[in-house]
């Protein structure tokens, strides 16, 4: 019942809802304006999805190709079956290099494996350098959006947070706040022993990783420290360098409504000569953590096509009301309701597939055409078939009765007649607390049909 409780808390938070309404509306408008600049948006979506489908059908082959080419360029590729293995691999790399401070650019995969806590347990301090992530880390919170981690916060709240944590004069001026964060973060970059980043795309044919960002912090993270660790899910690989073309059209437009992000870092291996910029060591950690399970069927496989743009969060009317934290997962919103049960187990997230009105707005905006409503329905069927989560005793009984009645038209009619005659009120407090309940019509359509409507159409009558 955590989802229900946390959603209720969110609904009672006026500041949160104001911030969400403002931000999701703005991102929706920017997205629409940005995709108007692409002559064939639908065609681009189809091409991107076809590339993802092709990759996922031969994922083993493309991952091996990526690994071979990345290692040829000087990177080391590590394979992590789950979160623990990934945290251990990264923790040991950091420890072996005597790292005390680690700078991080934005990575949802690192949130997924709870890397910061794992590093802290080893006495290593992780510092988030993406402004939104930095805000969330200072506040001791978790991101509430996969692209805009601090979307739930107002300027005033961030001003108060910075006054408290950074000792600046309270302000809600964006430039002042950004400058304060920049000054604090520059110091941390200078002292960092290791940089950890995520990966947006990993190109199999060249061994290149691509990181998109707007603040330059990812570029510093991946070039200033002597060692760079890049963490990627197995689904990030794409076959060819030329495939980036379509994804670079889709991702920034869908995510932030930008034609292109301010920075695109294409990183292939380590520096080759001492005069080159960049790290001496590049470690790429390839994470499974439940993803390969999704390859099993066509309906679940499409979950791995996700490029983490966040457009479905901005478009979702449920997310718009409650924000990300209520979902209780690093991946909130519609795609989170689909990914979380598959990654972390249906039992832990059985409520999430039901946290949707199935309106389909997410499917419409998805740049890779993931049929999120179909996935939600698939997961709901799994919840019911495997009796996961709450017992649903009354719901099962209700649907058993419903099915028994609905396959018998005469019984259906008799039941509805009895409900009308005896004025039986169904126990629908969850409806009637906020909404008037429309009463049954005095005469059903089928009764009116028999009572004369049928014959009115008879021209001869």
């Amino acid at each position: 019942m955590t989802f229900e409780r946390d959603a209720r808390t969110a609904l009672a938070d006026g500041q949160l809802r104001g911030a969400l309404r403002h931000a999701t509306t703005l991102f929706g408008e920017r997205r629409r304006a940005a995709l108007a600049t692409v002559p064939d948006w639908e065609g681009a979506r189809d091409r991107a999805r076809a590339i993802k489908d092709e990759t996922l059908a031969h994922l083993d082959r493309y991952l091996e190709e990526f690994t071979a080419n990345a290692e040829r360029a000087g990177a080391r590729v590590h394979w992590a079956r789950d979160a623990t293995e990934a945290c251990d691999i990264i923790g040991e790399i950091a420890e072996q290099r005597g790292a005390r401070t680690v700078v991080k650019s934005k990575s949802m995969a690192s949130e997924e494996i709870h890397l910061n806590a794992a590093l802290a347990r080893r006495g290593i301090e992780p510092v988030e350098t993406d402004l939104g992530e930095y805000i969330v880390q200072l506040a001791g919170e978790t991101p509430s959006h996969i692209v805009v981690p601090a979307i739930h916060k107002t300027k005033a709240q961030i001003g108060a947070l910075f006054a408290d944590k950074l000792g600046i004069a309270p302000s809600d001026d964006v430039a002042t706040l950004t400058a304060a964060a920049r000054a604090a973060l520059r110091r941390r970059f200078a002292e960092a022993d290791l940089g950890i980043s995520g990966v947006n795309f990993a190109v199999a044919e060249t061994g290149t990783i691509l990181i998109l960002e707007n603040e330059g912090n990812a570029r510093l993270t991946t070039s200033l420290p002597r060692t760079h660790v890049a963490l990627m899910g197995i689904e990030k690989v794409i076959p060819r360098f030329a495939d980036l073309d379509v994804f670079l059209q889709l991702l920034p437009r869908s995510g932030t409504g930008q034609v292109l992000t301010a920075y695109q870092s294409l990183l292939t291996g380590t520096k080759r000569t001492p005069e080159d910029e960049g790290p001496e060591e590049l470690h790429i950690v390839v994470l499974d953590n439940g993803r390969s399970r999704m390859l099993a069927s066509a309906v679940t496989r499409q979950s791995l096509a996700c490029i983490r743009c966040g457009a479905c969060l901005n478009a979702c009317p449920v997310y718009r009301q409650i924000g990300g934290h209520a979902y209780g997962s690093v991946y909130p919103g519609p795609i989170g309701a689909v990914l979380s049960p598959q990654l972390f187990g249906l039992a832990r997230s059985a409520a999430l597939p039901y946290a949707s009105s199935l309106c389909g707005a997410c499917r419409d905006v998805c740049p890779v055409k993931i049929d999120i409503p179909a996935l939600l329905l698939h997961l709901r069927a799994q919840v019911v078939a495997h009796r996961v989560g709450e017992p649903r005793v009354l719901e099962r009984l209700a649907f058993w009765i419903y099915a028994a009645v609905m396959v018998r038209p005469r019984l259906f009619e008799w039941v509805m007649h009895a409900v009308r005659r005896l004025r039986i009120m169904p126990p629908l407090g969850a409806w009637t607390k906020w909404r008037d309940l429309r009463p049954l019509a005095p005469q059903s359509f089928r009764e009116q049909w028999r009572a004369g409507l049928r014959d009115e159409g008879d021209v001869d009558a």
Partner: protein
Amino acid sequence: MRVSLFVTCLVDQLWPAAAVGAVDVLRRLGCAVEFDQRQTCCGQPAFNTGYRPAARALARRQIEIFESSAVDAIVSPSGSCTAMVRHYDQLFDDASWRARARAVAERTYELSSFLVNRLGVEDVGASFFGRLTWHDACHGLRDLGIRHEPRRLLRRVTGAELVELPNAEACCGFGGTFAVKYPEISVAMLDEKVDAIERAGVDAVVSGDASCLMQIGGRLSRRGSAVRAMHLAEVLASRP
């Protein structure tokens, strides 16, 4: 043209005026309307809540009932239930059932789409004096791609003035069992819709699904609003 009415259980029991209106409009346009009284529910509540065996049993019934009639089209005053029929093939592993499901789905139309796209009619001879706004029900809009059809029909209604809501395409928060599983979220979504309807200064909000109309109408009346919730077929059946 011979048409079989797929009334839907909700319209049958709660909003029969929509079906009566649909029959009236279809007959006015020269269609012979049949109604098979064996039909009950298309199975959508079960399908959407995860009860696939129940949904499959009802889908089989619906397919058997509607494939037995030799009509030219099956017409429904619901985009949502029409979309459910379009989803039937996913419920079956068996190729012959999938083919039968698709054959029925291909003949099933939502009312406004049938009138505009199949009959080629926009002016059905209706008259309704007042300001109206259209709420796009999600499944009609996004599963069936119905956007212009109801608006074209409403613009040709004598005396009616159609105004657009800024959030016409946003979900009203019904979502079947969602509306009672998470009523607070459902109503938060609903209130954005109802606020916009009240700001629009309309006499009625019109939609193509009785489910959304129950949700929107239920909140409007709870808030003491004078705005009526009306099914498209009721407006189209209005005569001077």
